[in-house]
């Protein structure tokens, strides 16, 4: 593991078609704001702390460009990712039917990474329900088929944002506990894995 990767505990990558609200979700998560962002060229990066049960973690968030042409790059960005948020816009049918090309990216991520499928722009439905183009059931079914977790959110109203973030944190903690046990068994003796080690270092500073 190299230095950079040690510095954060989890790499989260956002995938999904153009204008489904990836950058908006990142802004909501990291700054608590809702505004119309610039188009993402390539990728942008941010961080957010997560307060776990025993300690604080730092998650890095990779926001990618959604246009198909940037796909080859996003495979590259997926390397070492431990959590994938795959987004679609519940008012845009195409963004839902297109989802498979993002699930295909999972081959580039960490083996034990977890996926959350997210339907965005829930606030629009609250105002005019005829805008909904993907039903809740369809979303759930897709998530189920792909063995992933599922949320419908609104970055505008903040609906389900906190729940989403806590789920990410929970899953991460469960995953790392599992890994720790596995790690100990693998090495057949007590060894603090690199991850907790790193965390200790950080606490000293």
């Amino acid at each position, binding site marked *: 593991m190299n230095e950079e990767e040690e510095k954060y505990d989890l790499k989260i990558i956002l995938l999904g078609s153009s204008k489904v609200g990836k950058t908006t979700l990142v802004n909501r998560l990291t700054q608590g704001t809702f*505004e119309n962002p610039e188009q993402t*060229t390539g990728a942008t990066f941010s961080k957010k702390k997560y307060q776990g049960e025993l300690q604080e973690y730092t998650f890095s968030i990779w926001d990618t460009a959604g246009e198909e042409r940037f796909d080859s790059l996003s495979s590259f960005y997926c390397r070492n990712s431990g959590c994938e948020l795959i987004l679609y816009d519940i008012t845009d049918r195409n963004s839902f039917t297109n989802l498979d090309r993002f699930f295909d990216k999972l081959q580039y991520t960490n083996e034990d990474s977890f996926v959350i499928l997210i339907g965005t722009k829930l606030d629009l439905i609250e105002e005019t329900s005829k805008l909904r183009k993907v039903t809740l059931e369809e979303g759930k079914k897709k998530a189920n088929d792909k063995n992933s977790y599922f949320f419908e959110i609104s970055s505008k109203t903040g609906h389900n944002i906190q729940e989403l973030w806590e789920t990410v944190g929970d899953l991460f903690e469960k995953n790392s506990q599992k890994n720790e046990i596995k790690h100990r068994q693998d090495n057949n003796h007590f060894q603090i894995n690199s991850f907790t080690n790193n965390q200790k270092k950080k606490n000293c500073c």
Partner: protein
Amino acid sequence: MSNLPTPHWIDVAIGIVSSDDDFEDDFTKSNLRTNQNQNQQKNSPYQIELTQTTEKKASYDRYGFEITKNTDEKIFLHLLSRVGDEGNKQFSNESETSKAITNLLDPEEWNPKKRKYTPSKYTPSKNFRKPTKKEIKKELSRADKWIHMFANWEVYTTKKIKILDRRILKGIPDRVRGEAWKKIVGSDQLQKSKPNLYEQNITARNLTSEKIILKDLDRTFPEHQLFVQRQIQQKLYNVLRALANYSPETGYCQGMSFIGGLLLLYMEEKEAFYFFVKLLDDYHMKGIFQAGFPLLQYQFEEWKKMLRSHCPKIDAKLEENNVEPSFYAMKWFMTIYSNIRDFSGMAQVWENYLFRKNEFLFGFTLSLMKLSEKKILKMDPSYLLQQLQDIPNDFPISKVLEVYKKIKLSKDEKNRIQNLANNWLTQNGNSQKK
């Protein structure tokens, strides 16, 4: 502006709506989002917003400042050329110049908090002081020199090219900037020789590109007051559509809208199209934007080599942290630094790029790295990715250009940079033959 029968946004939008009803939804959504427009008429979705904009009548200059009676005369140092910018009116005599000066308001009036758009949070405050009489005169005389050069362009691009070179590096006065850019790129000539090219391409339809372009319009410089307005978005839409038709192998690619937007600040819609055509062809941006970004990848490879030989310490740090150029330099190389928040600085980068092409792009990036070396080496690796993209906003562009002047590229490097496009073209040609 010419008598070009510009296909109206309205017509275009109707065309789309009839062929794809998603667009009506898109529109409803965007209005819900901005909490505007409750009283819809049932015509074309875009028509409504367009009339609304005309009613508003607020206008903004290319730096996003609202133009009102009072602010009209306000200028600050790096925007000096705004004096008499409207209609390219020139101040021919002393008294007019001094009248413009007396109209300037106190620098205290330039309270950054009152401004609707901050060109850059890094723009040093000295840029906002009231310019002296001398400075204004100097700026105006510089503009005059450029107008003289326009009249004798052939001489200045051959025998006197060193003078041209020097004057570009100094920065082109803003009020002659658009004209100068067109001359440097030669798009004015192209427009003369192929007067129908725009009409041909704007009437053709291309639904795939159109849908992507529509999604990107309000995501182009969204903090800039001017780009929030539908008028400029419509122009941008027209230009990008026409380009997608002109160059089907490129189509529309994200990133192009930033370039189109910048151009529209300095020239008319039709001129911006011809200009962009020149960029695609002569500046090989086709290779940058087409699927797989072939030329961009060549450029990144070359950039890695250059960074290694000129800034080995930075290179080592990036290498160690697996930081690839495509993580931090996409906007720099793809859209020629459209992420510089100081618009006049971005324009300066652009004119140098237009004149010196890739040699400038690489040299400038190298200068940035040299200036940021200490900072980058100190950077917490976990913030590296986050901060690296934004280093062009750490310095006034003039400072980076000072460093650029001292950068010496080897002959070999210069050759390699120049050959990048040729290598791509040969490969491209070969693959097309296959």
